[in-house]
């Protein structure tokens, strides 16, 4: 059997998922969500809001995070900011102290206990109706909170997520992450319209405080507290919404090592939670799109992504090996540099690569790029995406399988890694 044929089912699944997202994007609920206007700052019914910033050794970024929160358009008397220092060992306390005199800001220091404990500690300090969380390496647009508030459309909506992108990407990895995050904007926006969200990300997700307190607050959850809370809310029958224009920027790991560490944490968090405590949601009709489509497809993606990567490596390696072998002993100027007969073939339609594998792969890539373009447009994220798209095209297919494979290995070996 042609080894390329192994990829057909996975390419079909990828195309199906992209089609599903694009059809859902055009459906009425998603259109209505896009048409929703941000809440008005003049609206007297705006709820009280507390934003908790859990910090652990964030001396370089926390001040910028807090300043962006203080610049939020929201009635000051209804907005409090709670900075929780989770036992930092660097200059984070001093960086926080700058804001001690601000009436909107509360600062609390506790022994290190993990991000979820910092989030719970902050939550315990407020009686606001809505509580949100923002990682201390993230920044928000001034209009973001009013956008988020427009997402609490009914009492059944327990949480609203924002639209994340990378803050001033400055290298290939961060450009790649930026495109990926913007891809995520489309995904989150459309899946929210069918209540298919399975994570309420650390950067700028908001909850009805009474609900998360009633559910017992955040848990360690294999270092996936944001994912676990979303699944718990889903299981309890609540809706998770998304505000696609609530722009929040995160820094994104600058190096491959740090990126892999972060993504292995996310991926193992997903696999351990969904494959463990929340296994009953997978394939369960009661949980609609989440149970029947989103979670099963996500699990499939991890397996199929790895297999596709290994298959591509095998095919590429086999082709490279054959190319090297048949060229051995032939002068390099002919074998490896362009010459007339090879060039004439390059620009001839006859030699256009046109296998099913390649064309289905191209269709899948076009689908991904379309979703990134939609995400940028819907969220009105500023800046050029050209570098992001290029970086995504060049690097993502090689890097993402690395963290998936390492995650699978960690789970198989029962290995747990530190946060950083």
């Amino acid at each position, binding site marked *: 059997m042609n080894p390329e044929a192994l990829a057909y089912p996975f390419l*079909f699944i990828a*195309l*199906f*998922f992209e*089609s*599903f997202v*694009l*059809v*859902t994007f055009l*459906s009425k*609920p998603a259109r209505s969500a896009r048409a929703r206007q941000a809440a008005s700052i003049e609206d007297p019914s705006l709820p009280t809001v507390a934003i908790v910033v859990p910090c652990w050794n964030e001396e370089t970024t926390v001040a910028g995070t807090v300043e962006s929160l203080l610049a939020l358009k929201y009635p000051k008397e209804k907005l409090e900011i709670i900075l929780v220092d989770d036992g930092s060992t660097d200059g984070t306390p001093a960086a926080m102290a700058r804001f001690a005199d601000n009436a909107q800001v509360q600062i609390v220091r506790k022994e290190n206990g993990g991000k979820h404990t910092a989030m719970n500690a902050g939550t315990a300090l407020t009686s606001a109706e809505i509580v949100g969380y923002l990682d201390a390496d993230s920044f928000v647009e001034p209009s973001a909170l009013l956008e988020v508030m427009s997402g609490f459309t009914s009492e059944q909506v327990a949480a609203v997520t924002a639209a994340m992108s990378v803050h001033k990407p400055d290298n290939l990895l961060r450009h790649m992450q930026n495109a990926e995050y913007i891809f995520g904007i489309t995904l989150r926006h459309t899946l929210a319209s*069918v209540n*298919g969200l399975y994570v309420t990300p650390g950067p700028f997700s908001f909850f009805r405080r009474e609900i998360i307190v009633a559910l017992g607050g955040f848990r360690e959850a294999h270092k996936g507290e944001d994912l676990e809370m979303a699944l718990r809310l889903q299981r309890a029958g609540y809706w998770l919404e998304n505000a696609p224009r609530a722009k929040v920027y995160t820094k994104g790991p600058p190096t491959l090592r740090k990126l892999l560490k972060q993504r292995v944490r996310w991926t193992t968090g997903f696999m351990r939670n969904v494959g463990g405590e929340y296994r009953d949601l997978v394939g369960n009709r009661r949980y*609609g*799109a989440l149970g*029947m*489509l989103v979670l099963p497809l996500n699990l499939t993606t991890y397996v199929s992504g790895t297999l596709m990567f290994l298959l591509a490596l095998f095919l590429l390696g086999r082709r490279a090996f*054959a190319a090297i*072998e*048949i*060229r*051995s*002993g*032939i*002068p390099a100027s*002919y*074998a490896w540099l362009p*010459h*007339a*007969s090879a060039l004439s*073939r390059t620009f001839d339609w*006859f*030699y*256009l690569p*046109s*296998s*099913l594998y390649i*064309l*289905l792969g191209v*269709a899948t890539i076009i689908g991904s790029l379309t979703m990134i373009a939609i995400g940028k447009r819907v969220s009105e994220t500023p800046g050029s995406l050209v570098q992001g798209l290029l970086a995504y095209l060049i690097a993502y297919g090689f890097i993402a399988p690395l963290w998936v494979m390492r995650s699978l290995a960690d789970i198989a070996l029962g290995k747990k890694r530190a946060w950083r």
Partner: protein
Amino acid sequence: MPLFVRNALIALAITGAIVGTVVYAVDYLNRERVADLQAIEDQLSIDTLSLDTQFSLLANAPCESTASSTDLTGELTDLGNRLAYTENQLGSENAQVVRLKQQYSLLEIRDYLATEELAKECDEKPVTVLYFYSNTPGECPDCDKAGYALSYLRDTYPALRVYSFDYHLSLGALSTLIGIEKIQPSFPAIVINGKASYGFTTLADLEKRFPKSALATSTSKGS
């Protein structure tokens, strides 16, 4: 029906349509390739017949013919490249590929004979290479390397006339050629100016099998 189920069904239909379109596009491109090859072969048949006719008309002075088989050889090379690519796409068992290979092999043999005839009549010394390969799995592990090395030599030394044949192709004329040249089923089989040798190790080794004057960088008289 829940919205996500309806959307999933629509997505399934769209995915089916995309896959169907891609399958159709692949098939369409392959059909176009075959049609392209057919057109080239038809043109070459006419050119070959024209050349034959010119030889017949100038039976007493064939060397004065303005016609030359060199152009045909160049077109044959291009046709061979296209045919090899198409064979790679459609598989060597494909009936259309087999038929095109039969036509191509006939054209090659005809061009080879014309070259030999000109050489005899006009005191020219072209270097002809008959290259026999096998597509049977495991029968010729070095054929790809030998084919590439011969392509290099042909592109580097325009005087070389390289004719490649699938040894197992079912074609009467090819069987006759194999019989006349006494080619054994050992691959790759390379016949240089009528002298057969077997196997391929390196380019340097292959070059040693050529007459000393054959691999000159300038175009030989016979071209």
